[in-house]
């Protein structure tokens, strides 16, 4: 480890001649760009979270509590738009994908470093447009994040601007996807065959494909709505012969695959963390890799299950229902393989592993309630109720959100070269679990009892459940601030991290923490399988 001190890390070296803030804003280094995404995305996450907190506070009692109904409408729209387009879609790929995908395949950078920086700027422009649309005359958008026609044409709020922001953000997403696919094809180190890639790379690769296949469809749909608002072309306007249901189809052709953009990288992170802390090679490597592709492919064909009650033929409905059940299979393959990996492993329950346990529990609830919504008869009863809200939050927040924290705890030492307080991290996992279930589980019950989603007011019999949910939101938000607190503290005061604090064997654990600018002194030659823990001994001698 002697040469570790001699090597400068990427914080101390710049890709350009500038120092200070410009060395970041003009950087081509994938690691710095990843961290810039992290700053931006986590800020928006906090904004989205506070909006959610305010909505929950409003719902603590029936009737008006702290805001009027119109404000509530704009808040749930903004919560959706910010969390989906600014946090959860770019979250894992743009932060951890950028930082670790090139390292994990033994490359010095992504294929198009300048394009990578451009995607960050486009993301920031999109985000700025979202924020600006709040303050312009007309007021914040109130259509819900689904922008359903005809209300999104009639609404006098700043719908066009918010839509344009989503269009711009989609462009950023497409460019990142193109970059990652090309990187995986062109820049794998010698010996790094496709089936020697870590599973996070596989998952990010599959995600990148969905990004470039699905995003253009939402782009054109959004453009059509903007044009419709500006010129009244009539494409989605029933008064002129257009068909609002067609909008729903085109919206979900993107937005359903988008949930796989959100969840697949998270599944990739799980496939990294479980072997590392079980000290055992992953069970069913190829099956997990292929199941990512299968999810990407089948996930593209299930969109209309969002529209069971909006007017389709029965044939179409049962076909989409069937396809929905089929897409659960590859997810099941992953869950079983993860559990089988732990079997007879030497499990070391460090915080990242505990976060993954959290994920498996929460995501399983989310996944299984998805089947309830996927079958036609039950969906008719539950559609547009809190049940859908609860399902969605268990899958997205309990799934991707939880794994966001898992990834943060897993790669924090590598990214920043510091360790955080393990005891605090363990407490945070438990508090998060309690807060999360208090916040969202009552929504399943309320939804089953018939509480519709997006409602400002509710009947008195829902009061106890709403109250539990609101208290849960306080615990959850408190925990998240607690996490940010000890992580920020660790940045300054944390103990220095070694190059391999967890005993992982993928490429990033072979290089110093934080990594040097070029990642590797020379491009490495890969000889081992990705999760071959017999390397640990030689790695100690490196």
């Amino acid at each position, binding site marked *: 480890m002697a040469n570790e001190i001699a090597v400068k890390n990427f914080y101390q070296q710049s890709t350009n001649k500038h120092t200070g803030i410009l060395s970041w804003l003009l950087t081509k280094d994938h690691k710095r760009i990843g961290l810039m995404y992290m700053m931006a995305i986590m800020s928006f996450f906090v904004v989205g979270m506070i909006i959610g907190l305010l909505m929950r506070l409003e719902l603590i009692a029936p009737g008006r509590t702290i805001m009027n109904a119109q404000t509530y409408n704009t808040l749930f729209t903004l919560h959706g738009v910010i969390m989906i387009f600014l946090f959860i879609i770019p979250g894992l790929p743009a932060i951890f994908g950028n930082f670790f995908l090139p390292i994990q395949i033994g490359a010095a950078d992504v*294929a198009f470093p300048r394009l990578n920086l451009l995607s960050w700027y486009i993301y920031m422009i999109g985000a700025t447009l979202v924020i600006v649309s709040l303050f312009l005359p007309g007021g914040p958008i109130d259509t819900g994040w689904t922008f359903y026609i005809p209300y999104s044409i009639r609404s006098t709020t700043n719908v066009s601007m918010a839509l344009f922001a989503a269009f711009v953000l989609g462009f950023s997403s497409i460019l990142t996807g193109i970059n990652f696919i*090309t990187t995986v094809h062109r820049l794998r180190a010698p010996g790094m065959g496709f089936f020697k890639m870590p599973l996070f790379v596989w998952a990010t690769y599959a995600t990148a494909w969905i990004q470039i296949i699905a995003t253009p469809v939402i782009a054109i749909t959004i453009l059509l709505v903007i044009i419709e608002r500006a010129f009244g072309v009539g494409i989605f306007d029933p008064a002129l012969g257009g068909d609002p249901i067609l909008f729903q189809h085109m919206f979900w052709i993107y937005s359903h695959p988008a949930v796989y953009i959100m969840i697949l990288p998270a599944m990739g992170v799980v496939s990294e963390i479980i072997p590392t802390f079980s000290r055992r090679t992953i069970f069913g490597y190829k099956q997990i890799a292929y199941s990512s592709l299968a999810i990407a492919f089948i996930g593209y064909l299930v969109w209309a299950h969002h529209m069971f009650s909006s007017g389709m033929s029965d044939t179409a409905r049962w076909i989409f229902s069937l396809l929905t059940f089929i897409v659960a299979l590859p997810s099941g393959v992953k869950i079983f393989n993860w559990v089988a990996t732990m079997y007879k492993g030497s499990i070391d329950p460090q915080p990242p592993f505990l976060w993954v346990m959290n994920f498996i529990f929460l995501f399983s609830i989310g996944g299984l309630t998805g089947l309830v919504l996927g079958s036609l008869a039950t969906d008719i009863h539950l559609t547009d109720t809190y049940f859908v809200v609860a399902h969605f939050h268990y899958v997205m927040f309990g799934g991707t959100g939880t794994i966001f924290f898992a990834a943060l705890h897993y790669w924090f030492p590598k990214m920043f070269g510091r360790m955080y307080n393990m005891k605090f991290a363990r407490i945070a996992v438990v508090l998060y679990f309690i807060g999360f279930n208090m916040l969202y589980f009552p929504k399943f019950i309320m939804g089953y009892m018939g509480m519709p989603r997006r409602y400002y007011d509710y009947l008195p019999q829902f009061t106890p459940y709403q109250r539990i949910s609101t208290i849960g939101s306080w615990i959850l938000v408190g925990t998240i601030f607690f996490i940010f607190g000890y992580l920020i503290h660790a940045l300054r005061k944390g103990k220095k991290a070694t190059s391999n604090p967890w005993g992982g064997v993928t490429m990033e654990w072979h290089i110093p923490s934080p990594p040097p600018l070029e990642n590797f002194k020379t491009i490495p030659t890969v000889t081992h399988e990705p999760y071959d823990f017999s390397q640990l001994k030689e790695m100690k001698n490196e």
Partner: protein
Amino acid sequence: MSDHQEAAVHQLHRDDAGARMGMWLFLFTEVLLFGGMFLVYAVYRYQYPDQFHLAARELNTTLGTLNTIILLTSSLTVALSIAALQNGNKFLSLILLSATLLFALTFMVIKYFEWTTKIAHGIYPGSPELLTKPNGQILFFGLYYVMTGLHGLHVLVGMVVISFMIVFIARDKVTPDNYVKLENSGLYWHLVDLIWIFLFPLFYLIQ
């Protein structure tokens, strides 16, 4: 960063096959973008076949054909300019690119006259004249403006890209040894052409 490392990283970034791959992926997203539009077109054509038929007769097939010929020729000139540069003939390459630019401009001018004639006849989205027509015709002209407009926007972007290539070749940033930028611009231009090849029959010819 030392010079040596700079060179090493720079070396890595010169990956022509990678650059082409990235471009093809981007073109793929463009095809899907227009694919969404073609889907909308298909749905409404199926729904209002008679009115689409009637509305299509209002379009000027002669101008459409002329534009098709112009655009196809411009695709030829851009392909030839790449070949010329590969053979080291910088001057010919520049001439051919300028010709492409000129064709593109002609295309846009003809498009302009087509649109303004329609607008002068009161056929444009939301016009009182158009609103008296049946829904199928409103949709046909709505789609006509949106799809040819979006395509026209792509022609403009292509013109900007080709202008940049002319500057790059003139300043020897794009050379016979390093012409992947020009190749990618050519690919983009072919896509613009390709989309028109589908738009032309769908709006002008199928009647």
